[in-house]
């Protein structure tokens, strides 16, 4: 039996004349994810994308699970293909979905007749298939309002498709349709969630991670690689820059007042990230900040860091509670990695009482105390190491 994958795109239908471009990007993203599993052919028809494996030993379970993480799709389903002949259709329904139907108490049949030359109308197809299932499965009942299992029969121009219930797609917009942005990733819970949320709106990702060896461990960097690998299952390829930040942190420690340490550090980080982001052609910077979560994320502290950015700063977690962020991090499977106990550069040299109400003037004055700031920043940018993170290669 020949099997295919059917995809329903979501918001793309609203995109008018740009729709075809968006769909092409979507197909490209899907191809990047599943090409390592084998060869597929892709076809667009109405609001459906049809993916056909070119040979039968391709692992479709894995393909479907990968496709379910591609943004821009609301539904993913597998279907059996058969001849447009009612007897063949009944036979295929039984071969393909019989086991599932035998485990269900109620069912419903949906028919879609795109090919109007097919002799039976949609309600007639439903009658035929429904009656057939009732005769085969003892005790099963029809329930059109709340069925446990739904069988869909689609009569297309070239063939009939038989499928069970549709899986939920990842939603959002195809990655790459929203330009590129740069996520500041620490290794905590929030930043991978922020990266995921922006990727969901079609943004391609560049990431910047600040490491402070020897205060931070190699394990902390490896943790970031693992986190981004999880995110890249959704977002596709991520360019990661690791910035060695020790010299700047030590300079801030040596020259700035203790209570301004965190704000100053974040301002410098924002400068470095903005520069790398612009160099990568990003249109925005993303952070995982949530208002009031810690001293550096008060509204005043955010104002101080924000003015150092040369690009718009997106903060998708800004209005979320910790438990809401945790919920998403569990969904995208980053939570268990995030809670591994390695210090990241934000927790090195933590002041005892960080200032929660800094003003931009204070922040600027403090920053000016670092004697060779520009030079240190330039060095950080020049010596940043890039690596490519991609889940399915």
């Amino acid at each position, binding site marked *: 039996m020949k099997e295919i994958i059917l995809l329903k795109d979501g918001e793309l239908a609203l995109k008018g004349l740009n729709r075809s471009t968006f769909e092409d990007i979507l197909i490209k993203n899907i191809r990047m994810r599943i090409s390592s599993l084998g060869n597929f052919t892709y076809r667009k028809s109405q609001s459906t994308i049809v993916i056909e494996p070119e040979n039968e030993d391709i692992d479709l379970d894995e393909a479907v699970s990968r496709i379910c993480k591609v943004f821009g799709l609301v539904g993913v389903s597998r279907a059996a293909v058969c001849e447009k002949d009612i007897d063949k259709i009944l036979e295929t329904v039984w071969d393909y979905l019989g086991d599932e139907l035998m485990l269900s108490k109620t069912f419903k049949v949906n028919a879609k007749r795109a090919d109007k030359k097919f002799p039976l109308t949609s309600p007639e197809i439903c009658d035929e298939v429904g009656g057939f299932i009732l005769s085969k499965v003892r005790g099963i009942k029809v329930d059109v309002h709340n069925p446990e299992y739904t069988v869909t029969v689609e009569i297309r121009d070239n063939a009939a498709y038989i499928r069970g219930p549709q899986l939920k797609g990842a939603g959002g917009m195809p990655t790459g349709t929203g330009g590129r942005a740069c996520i500041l990733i620490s290794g905590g819970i929030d930043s991978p969630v922020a990266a995921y949320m922006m990727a969901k709106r079609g943004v391609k990702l560049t990431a910047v991670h600040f490491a402070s*060896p*020897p*205060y*931070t*461990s*190699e394990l902390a960097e490896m943790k970031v690689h693992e986190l981004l690998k999880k995110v890249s299952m959704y977002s596709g390829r991520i360019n990661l820059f690791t910035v060695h930040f020790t010299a700047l942190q*030590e300079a801030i*420690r040596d020259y700035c007042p*203790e209570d301004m*340490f965190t704000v100053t550090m974040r301002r410098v980080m924002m400068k470095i990230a903005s520069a790398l982001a612009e160099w990568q052609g990003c249109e925005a910077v993303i952070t995982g900040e949530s208002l009031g979560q810690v001293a550096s994320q008060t509204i005043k502290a955010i104002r101080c860091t924000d003015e150092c950015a040369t690009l718009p700063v997106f903060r998708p977690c800004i209005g979320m509670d910790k438990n809401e962020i945790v919920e998403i991090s569990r969904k995208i499977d980053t939570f268990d990695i995030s809670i591994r*106990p390695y*210090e990241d550069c934000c927790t*090195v*040299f*933590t*002041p*005892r009482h960080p200032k929660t109400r800094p003003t931009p003037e204070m922040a600027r004055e403090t920053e000016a105390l670092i004697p060779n700031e520009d030079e240190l920043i330039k060095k950080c940018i020049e010596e940043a190491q890039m690596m490519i993170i991609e889940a399915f290669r």
Partner: protein
Amino acid sequence: MEIYLDNSATTKVCPEAVRAVTDCLTENYGNPSAVHSKGIKAKMLLDASRQKIADVLSCDSSEVYFSHSGTLANNTAIFGAVEAKRKTGNRIITTSLEHPSVSRCMDKLEKCGFEVIRLAPSANGSFRTEQLVNTVNKNTILISTMLVNNETGAINPVELISKVVKRASAPALIHIDAIQAFGKIPVKPARMGVDLLSISGHKVHAPKGVGALYIRKGIKIKPFLSGGGQENDMFSGTEALPAIAGFGAAASALPDLNRQLEQTRNLKNFALNELSKIPAVEINSPSDALPYILNISVTGIPSQVLINYLSQKGIYISAGSACKKGHRSEVLIAMGLPAKRIDSAVRVSMSRFTTQEEIAVFCEGVNDAVKNIRTKL
């Protein structure tokens, strides 16, 4: 240059063991249980390796049972002994400084209703004889303690245990975790008067994946694993012959332990002398500890930061025990050290291949760290 000073976590495999393992992987790869000549040859290698371990332990080869790790040897000894003796009493005595492969077993037994008494260490890190005399009674079925502490090198007075047991006429079996001691000081279970004793291969330049349990002749304990009955039914599962052959070879390659101990003591004294020039360094290991292990704290530098710093220079040390990540050392807490000192404690562990130059480079590294690292604002 690479300076490996984490030999209590694991060791580099010695050339003798590498040869034995390779031979076993490529030529002598039979299953010791098979009855054809390939199998018989493997069985002979297994027996020869057992004899080599027995030679080092000064015991009969029939008293040596190969396990798949030190942890499995400890678990089997403890649960096996308790299972065999449970009808004769309810009290188990251990110390509060055990490796997790012992202490976690004790937690489990406590939950099952046994009375577990954990002796607290004195300031030098080992338990005191009078504590033992006061706790062993006729109801005691097992006494389990380590010979050398894995974090500090403190040595427990284990040879006294059998006398205490005899005087109290307790039915207790005595188990010794000698994993850190084996291959460093003479470990002779018969002379120590113990019934069960665990050792591990990868701490003595053999590969990982093999340990052994000494079970004194006449002692019966219940096996922990059920299966094909290998190792006289004590450790079922096909013998990891390459690792076992490596273990045998590594045991045979051990030098004269007393002379080696003297050399290592000189190295440790050299280290102590060098480190004494750095005011920030405090020594946590007791002065009479095994010289192979040196536990120190560097004031103001958290353990992980010092490890990272030295790691960048190719010098590898560890924080306390490598077996449990991210926790404050229970051993140092039990020794009554202040929290700050525990948070900056690191363990330097040497092997017979450690040289004085390596120690000198390490001490210099610590000195640089003290000069360059400041975590306080």
